[in-house]
């Protein structure tokens, strides 16, 4: 394996894992997707010089692989429960004083995000990655920045409605 690939793994593997996990919500699948991403990079490593922004390029590969895998496993029931999801988070996150959410709520809201329309859901999930700017999200989704902003706005509004509905239904 070349030093370039090793450098890319060191720099971007965690970001790619987050991107894959945001779609699959399964740690093992997210790891597989990141591995598949770097295998593709290995296969096309002679083209690395032509890549302008390696981060966006890698995130795009991971994103498409994750969506593809999610599409194929749609009929399969989710295996990862809330406890497993919480395990993937840093230990201090749920213990922070300013946290406004419990692990159960976290799981419930993630389930509600899955009910959003495809474009809005994808924009919202990518916006959760602090490493990605709106312009980069627009490149990954092959659209404009303004479109991404409006998708995120719509997604948040619809998600808030769903949360309220769920709360009033309980």
């Amino acid at each position: 394996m070349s030093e370039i690939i090793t450098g890319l793994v060191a720099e971007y593997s965690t970001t790619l894992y987050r991107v894959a996990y945001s779609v699959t919500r399964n740690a093992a699948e997210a790891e597989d997707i990141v591995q598949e991403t770097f295998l593709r990079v290995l296969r096309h490593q002679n083209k690395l010089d032509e890549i302008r922004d390696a981060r966006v390029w890698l995130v795009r590969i991971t994103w498409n692989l994750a969506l593809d895998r999610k599409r194929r496993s749609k009929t399969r029931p989710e295996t990862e429960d809330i406890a497993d999801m919480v395990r993937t988070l840093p230990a201090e996150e749920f213990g922070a004083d300013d946290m406004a959410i419990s692990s159960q709520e976290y799981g419930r809201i993630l389930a509600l995000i899955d009910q959003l329309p495809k474009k809005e859901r994808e924009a919202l999930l990518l916006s959760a990655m602090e490493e990605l700017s709106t312009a980069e999200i627009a490149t990954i989704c092959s659209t404009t920045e303004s479109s991404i902003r409006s998708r995120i706005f719509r997604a948040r509004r619809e998600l808030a409605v769903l949360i309220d509905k769920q709360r009033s239904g309980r």
Partner: protein
Amino acid sequence: MNTPRNASHNPEKKIDATLHLLGQVRPANGFEQRLCARLDQSSFHARKSFWAGTSEFFFAQRLTFAASAATLACAAMIVGSVQHSHQRTLPNTTVHLAAPGSGLGAASGTRITPQPLIAPPHGRSRSERKATGGRATVQRNAHKPAGVAVPDSAEPQKP
């Protein structure tokens, strides 16, 4: 499981908190090392399978390759032989003159004798004929076998 520390029911805050947590997800310890190890293994297997596949292909197809090589060799020999013979018989469009006295040369080669032929002093060549008006004539004093009659005049009668 933790219990909510903040009892706020503001959906916006919950959404922000959820997205913040989603953006903070970390892979299990040693993920990078596992990834590098898997990639190393995959690239090694890819190289190995390439060479193994190549050698297996050549081994399995050895009869085909041998037959092809033999056919090619035969074709090369035939083409070479034909080309060689063409060079000897049809070198170019000019008249081929065999080297005088060498005794070598193709049967069809044009030959020019080194010395011009000299006509015999008495006699004539066999192809020389004297004809009048396109008709053959026999001289009166010509030697003829006994019993052969010669007309008085071989000249055609003039009107």
